[in-house]
């Protein structure tokens, strides 16, 4: 790519993201106005639905006294460790299943059956077995992350073109070289799609765990605030969770931009 092309691409990208940013701001402004109008129109009390400015004020307080940061940090730890454990183990198991049809036939019924049990139902058991600390929460997050990443790993590895496998075999590639030069890059688009879903699900897992039993985290903060009829704080915690999930989603998107630039003509991956 020459300099002129590079500059053109940078220019287009910048203009497009500016465009997108303006749309996001616009829709946020409309939503806030509707929210504000709803409260004013029906004279809703604060404990039912606080106004945007009441929520903002409560958020500022929670930031200043450190509670928000403390609980966010706890939840973030659970989310990230659960995501790492769930996605990591799902990748290994998924790879093995993709390689062995008999093993897949043997294990698939159990894996599918495990998906019909909602994590909310197992969460109390995990709390009983592993306590109310980080470990139980990590396991709950990992459980919920596991399946989508597993499925996408299997699909990704299975989608590796047979002709390229033949080519590498004819070139006497070692099994490790096949993984490194062919399977990882070929499966990456589908795999990252699974990771993107898993990242947002991990946030749900953490909140489920914190709802069941704990003394910290954003899920706990929601419960606590609800008990005190501190509805603005509930909103603050919910918005923080949304921001957390969006940030994780955005991180995976950034990974996709970096690794999958070859996928689309504009040099940017599909959404």
């Amino acid at each position, binding site marked *: *790519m020459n300099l002129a092309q590079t500059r053109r691409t940078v220019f287009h990208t910048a203009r497009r993201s500016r465009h997108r940013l303006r749309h996001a701001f616009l829709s946020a402004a409309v939503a806030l106005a509707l929210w504000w109008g709803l409260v004013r129109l029906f004279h809703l009390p604060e404990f039912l639905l606080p106004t945007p400015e009441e929520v903002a004020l409560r958020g500022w307080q929670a930031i200043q006294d450190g509670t928000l940061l403390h609980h966010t940090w706890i939840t973030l730890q659970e989310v990230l460790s659960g995501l790492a454990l769930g996605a990591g183990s799902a990748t290994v198991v998924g790879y093995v299943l993709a390689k062995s049809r008999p093993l897949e036939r043997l294990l698939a019924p159990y894996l599918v059956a495990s998906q019909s049990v909602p994590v909310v139902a197992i969460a109390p058991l995990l709390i009983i077995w592993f306590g109310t600390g980080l470990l139980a929460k990590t396991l709950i997050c990992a459980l919920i992350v596991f399946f989508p990443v597993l499925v996408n790993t299997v699909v990704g590895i299975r989608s590796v073109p047979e*002709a390229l496998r033949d080519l590498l075999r004819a070139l006497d590639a070692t099994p490790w070289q096949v993984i490194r030069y062919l399977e990882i890059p070929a499966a990456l688009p589908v795999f990252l799609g699974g990771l993107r879903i898993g990242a947002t699900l991990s946030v749900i897992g953490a909140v489920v765990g914190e709802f069941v039993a704990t003394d910290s985290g954003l899920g706990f903060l929601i419960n606590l605030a609800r008990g005190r009829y501190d509805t603005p704080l509930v909103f603050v915690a919910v918005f923080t969770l949304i921001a957390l999930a969006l940030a994780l989603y955005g991180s995976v998107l950034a990974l996709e931009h970096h690794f999958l630039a070859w996928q689309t003509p504009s040099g940017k991956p599909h959404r």
Partner: protein
Amino acid sequence: MTSLPPLVRVRHLGVVFPTEDGLGLEAIRDLSFEIHPQEFLAVVGPSGCGKSTLLRVLAGLLEATRGEVAFPAHPQGKPQVGLVFQKANLMPWRSVLRNITLPLELQGVPRAEADSRGRAMIALMGLKGFANALPRDLSGGMAQRVALARALIHRPDLLLLDEPFTALDALTRERLWEELLHIWQHERTTVVMVTHSVTEALLLADRVLVLTQRPAHLQMALPVDLPRPRTADLRYTPHFGRLARRLREALGGHTPRP
């Protein structure tokens, strides 16, 4: 050339694919021939006759059910092969240069050396200016040139081509014929090319093997005594016509007029 041992010796080769009914599908039956070093061998036959199966056996991708495939010039093991399919089968995430240098990377050749050899190959194949392009930006003919470059970069002992020009338009095909001849003259690799085009076989090869319907065995081996260097125009000469006629008769697709 005759004093050298053959590069490949195929003896009584048989290939049977297992099927659900247990009878098996016989693709190749009792096929024997030799490939000499630096020879350009074409294999023609009716479609579905097992030509590609033969190529897969030569590439070491498929085990012979019966008989043997020996490499007398390589007493310990098999020769290095280069492979080109009907489709280019490039890695879409790798640039043209990185696709071409893949065999060198697999062999552990240092990056700097791989790059310089890759760039030399890019120049040879008329791909200058495309080193950093991605496969999605290439035309069919361009992609096939890259596939050919990838198959030649590690200087294989045996270049295996499986209908490499079938998917291309006529003009591109003719240009690539001449380029392949040019490169073959330059590198002197042994080539086995599977094709269903009589013209392509005669223009490129030293010898043409005609296979029968499945299960494939040898129908005829025709030495092509056309002078080299050859150009695509050679096909309008009377001698070419005679050879083509013999091939077509052997293939059974054309009955001679009375």
